[in-house]
């Protein structure tokens, strides 16, 4: 088996160690004998998005997100269709906001997003949300919690299924104690960490969906030696869980 992991704009959207997510997907495939091609989609190189099995988009500085917004406008319909089709996509923080209908710039102005999905991120005048976060995920995962670090100024409002209910921390906004969104196999989240190495069960969820899309009858993934991952996860819950 073989998967193409598309990394969108790694040269611009590379804050908070989120590149570790791509390493994680790759590593967990290779350990199971699944071949992997990491394909960078950049300003200069525009490989065919239709060939991607898992897509990752991270967050960047305000100016970097503006550059990406302008450049990606002409490709957004393709990605939208792929998400409708059920391709596996992970968008973190700025990338999560970018795919919605609006996000905010440095001055707190609301600016249009790519509108690939119908949720909005806006400026409320309230302080940035920064801190450790633990959520109970709505996905059928074992264990059922996800851990990470959130750091965002905008508040996101959506009617989609959330990625999880917040146990510790804040999540999308100040009101509903929900974190992230799930739509088909698209996952948007504010969790850094990076989120996948810290939550290998979420990484495996994306890999499994991608394999099912491509090869149909994949039932489950072979378990891996996650001793260190589990220790880090348990330590986090011990330190910051309530």
């Amino acid at each position, binding site marked *: 088996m073989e998967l193409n992991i598309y990394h969108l704009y*790694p*040269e611009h959207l*590379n*804050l*908070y*160690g*989120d*590149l*570790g997510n791509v*390493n*994680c997907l790759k*590593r967990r495939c290779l350990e199971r004998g699944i071949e992997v091609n990491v394909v960078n989609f950049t300003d200069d190189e525009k490989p065919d998005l239709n060939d991607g099995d898992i897509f990752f988009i991270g*967050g*960047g*500085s*305000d*100016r*970097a997100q503006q*550059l990406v917004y302008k450049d990606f406008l002409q490709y957004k319909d393709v990605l939208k269709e792929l998400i409708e089709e059920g391709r596996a996509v992970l968008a973190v923080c*700025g990338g999560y906001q970018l795919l919605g209908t609006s996000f905010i710039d*440095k001055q707190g102005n609301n600016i249009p997003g790519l509108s690939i999905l119908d949720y909005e991120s806006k400026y409320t005048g309230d302080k*940035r949300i*920064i*801190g*450790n976060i633990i959520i109970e995920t709505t996905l059928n995962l074992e264990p059922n919690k996800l851990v990470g*670090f959130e*750091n965002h*100024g905008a508040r996101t409002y959506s009617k989609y299924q959330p990625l999880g209910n917040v146990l510790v921390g804040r999540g999308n906004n100040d009101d509903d104690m929900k974190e992230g969104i799930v739509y088909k196999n698209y996952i948007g989240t504010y969790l*850094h*960490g*990076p989120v996948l*190495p*810290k939550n290998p069960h979420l990484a495996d969820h994306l890999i499994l969906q991608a394999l099912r899309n491509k090869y149909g009858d994949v039932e489950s993934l072979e378990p891996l*030696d996650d*001793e*260190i*991952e589990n*220790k*880090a996860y348990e*330590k986090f819950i011990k*330190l910051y869980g309530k």
Partner: protein
Amino acid sequence: MVNVRSMIALYAGKFSKQVLKLINSSGTALPGKLALRIDNNFLDNIEEKCDTVIMVTGTNGKTTTNNLLNHVIGTRTDKILSNLKGANMIQGIATTYVNNTKDHYDYGIFEVDEGTLRSVTRYVKPDYILVSNFFRDQLDRFGEIDNLVEDVYTTIEKLPESTLILNVDDPLVNKFTQLPNKIIKFGLDLDLDEVQNSSLSMKNCPLCEGKLQYSSHVYGHFGNYECDKCGFKRPNPDFVVSNLEEKASSQMITIDYGDEELVFEYPYTGIYNAYNVLGVFTVCKQLGLSDDEIVSAMGDFSFHLGRMEEMEYKGKIIKVILTKNPIGLTQVINMISNDERSKTVVHILNDNPADGEDISWIWDAYTICEREETVLHYYCSGIRAEDIALKKKYDNVPLDKIKINDNFKEIIDTAIEDDVEIVYVLPTYTAVFETRDYIENVVKSN
């Protein structure tokens, strides 16, 4: 004229220092904080007392640069007021003044946090400002350094009398050459062509967002660059390091300026140290020190406080190096990679507020050690021991080499008994002092 309010502030600060001593607390910023509470113009006193004021700012190397400057200028005078221990926020600088004992100082030399420069220079106008570099810091809460650079830039716009000493290898610092101030430039004419880490290197022009093309590359986003859109490029520096030769525990540095060329040995390795040395050299030349004075002082510099300290234990070297942000950690690992000796590496990762509560910064660092076969163990400790262990796993280190224990004392006890020539201990900020003190105690009681 004696300002009564400011006198009260000074004595309140001194009194609190005595109290801190009694309760055996180090609280380096508290006396200054108290003094500022009583007299918020308290820092005005510093400018009155010091003939020449030098400030050092930028992300990395401030404390080393400050200590090295003190060491070199200290060969001329002992009348220097300085925040040598790295308390670089406004209260820390005020504390330095609370602790002062002399009526007059020839030099005030301060490292100043980039975010604090604006408030400090409201009271103290520096004669020289050394701007070393801008890197994303682990405390970079807003996810971008653009705002920080802009803040320092507009601060210096209000200081037209200050001479700027700029590291022009950094495009973000080079931007400051557009200011009308007197400007002295320094940089390294080297092409090291190291492994590039995409999240550490910058590719866009700070003026126009165009692409920066590098004809040579030192590390991070340092190098010889030119914007393909607006022509913004690295100018020729006035002071240049034209050659570096790394040895086991020192380096030969060649500095060129004007028609002069100097070659000397500096007792610490690492390219980032070459930047510190060149920055200090450039400042000292502005102050009128002779080449010989500077070079011979640098040759016997020794640094404490865990920034680069070496201790000996049972015939091996224990080296403590603070690692507090992605570029710093990358550079230290690069230095370890160049070391051929058998070694063990101890990471101590804390996530206290001063370290950065978001430890995802370790994923922005390039932490793969070359010469993997010379590393016996990677010990992982600190509050987030498991997280640094996970990063080592992702570096493809064999799992049996990774040892996890969040008790740093236990891990140091074990690590220093390893049968190796050198033990590298790499604590984050809030771990550095206690780690250093603990090792010193063990070494002494042996």
